[in-house]
């Protein structure tokens, strides 16, 4: 394992310290050092928007903190939900008096910690609404969509929720719009190589050379199937088929497309995938409104990529167009 780390047990602390130093114009450290806060937060009279999640997914989650996006982010250990206290402290930092919406991913730990944090916030009179992302198609069949994990679609949920809040919408409208955004998202991941938690020292799952895991999760959760590695063209076609079959969008629907690397895949390969993805989506009769290609939501040094497709309407398009000021380019 060749990594730029000091003490493996202090990876998250060191990450946060360096992040805040690099981006002091956009974010600040919260009173709780496991909370990152937008420099302009809390905004009086605006619904606060928060999320939180395990570390190791940078630029998610902290990189989406900033004006018109997330007001505060709770930071967990690597691949591990933040504490209820950190979620609670993020809610407090984001509270501008109009309530706070917590937009997070569907994982057992996050569900429990957010629930406890909501109770703590309610005791202080802060009204909290929540939306749980479940865009990962391969993590459960369509009839059990509520069991699906949240992955890169969360970025669209934050962007839409953040923009809606910035427009001055009340809490319930912000919640409903963020819910619509994630309901309109479907994602899939394909893994080509595993990742290692520094404190563990070796990968905790294997992807044999010459094979790929179709439907892999953001922490290496096994996917639909393991099969021989194919050309980028064939992989991109498979990804589109899985996402779009599940989506079932009517002809002419406008979509936003997000292709994210998982950490160790070079950017050029993401563009190679996108070349086919663009063709496949158009061939389905869909219109691409906007495409994002980059390392938006990673999994340490996992080799692989994810595809997220969000169906758009006029409201979502307008909110997607709102400019944001966060460290992750979006």
């Amino acid at each position: 394992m060749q990594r730029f780390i000091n003490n493996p047990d202090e990876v998250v602390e060191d990450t946060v310290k360096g992040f805040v130093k690099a981006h002091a114009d956009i974010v600040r450290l919260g009173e709780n050092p496991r909370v990152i806060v937008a420099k302009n937060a809390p905004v009086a009279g605006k619904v606060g928007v928060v999320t939180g999640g395990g570390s190791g997914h940078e630029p998610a989650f902290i990189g989406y903190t900033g004006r018109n996006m997330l007001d505060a982010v709770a930071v967990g250990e690597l691949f591990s939900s933040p504490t209820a206290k950190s979620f609670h402290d993020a809610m407090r930092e984001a509270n501008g008096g109009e309530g706070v919406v917590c937009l997070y991913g569907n994982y057992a730990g996050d569900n429990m910690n957010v629930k406890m944090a909501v109770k703590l916030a309610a005791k202080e009179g802060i009204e909290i609404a929540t939306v749980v992302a479940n865009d990962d198609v391969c993590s459960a069949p369509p009839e059990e969509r509520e069991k699906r994990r949240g992955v890169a679609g969360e970025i669209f949920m934050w962007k839409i929720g953040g923009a809606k809040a910035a427009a001055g919408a009340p809490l319930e409208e912000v919640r409903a719009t963020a819910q619509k955004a994630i309901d309109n998202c479907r994602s899939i991941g394909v893994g080509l190589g595993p990742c290692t938690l520094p404190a563990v020292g070796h990968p905790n799952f294997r992807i044999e050379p010459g094979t790929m895991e179709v439907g892999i999760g953001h922490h290496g959760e096994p996917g639909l199937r393991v099969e021989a590695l194919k050309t980028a063209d064939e992989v991109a076609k498979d990804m589109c088929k899985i996402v779009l079959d599940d989506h079932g969008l009517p002809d002419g629907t406008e979509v936003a497309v997000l292709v994210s690397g998982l950490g160790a895949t070079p950017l050029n390969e993401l563009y190679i995938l996108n070349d086919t993805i663009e063709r496949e989506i158009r061939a389905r009769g869909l219109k691409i409104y906007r495409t994002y290609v980059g390392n938006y939501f990673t999994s340490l040094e996992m080799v692989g990529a994810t595809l997220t497709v969000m169906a758009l309407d006029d409201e979502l398009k307008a909110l997607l167009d709102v400019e944001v000021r966060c460290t992750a380019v979006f």
Partner: protein
Amino acid sequence: MSEIAVRRLIEMFDAISSDIGAERDRLSELDGAIGDADHGITMAIGFSAVTSELARTDASSAELSSVMTAAASAFLNAVGASTGPLYATAFRRAAQALEGCDALDLGTCALLVQSIASGIRERGKGQRGDKTMLDVWLPAADAAAQAIAAGKPADAFWADVTAAAQNGANATRSMVATKGRAARLGERSLGHMDPGAASAVLIIGAMARTLR
């Protein structure tokens, strides 16, 4: 009377923390097989936070209940993941159950095991057979209740409780996970002991050693 009991309860947490610390890597290995390999680290962080907090406790003025409350807050504030809320809720329930108790007699020990089990069940909304820590805590709680009903002495009580815990953990090998991250593995989780069950055995073992 209460001061001696409070000291024993704090010693119990010291023993749990040291056993979990010693087995940290094994727990992470177990988790690596079916989860994300952080269970040993997470549990070690949590119990070390509990022992640091309890080291500041004045045993002469504390009560059993307040020790459990302090343990719950320390664990919750140090640990995210699923284990943070699960054990924090467990210790809170134990604090409520031990309200007014000032001795760690067998009845109180049984109450402690039972309230931890019901706190975890309440927070995780799980049951036996889900391949979780409840497959250890629920049988241990049943064994404690039965040992009390049968009027067994301390040695037999703890022998029953620890045996039920170990059997419960072993049984998770033949279960398919339905909760937590391992649930995403479905049948691929077969054959592996649940890491949360393994750490629960360590906790109960340390409780037996210090409270016996």
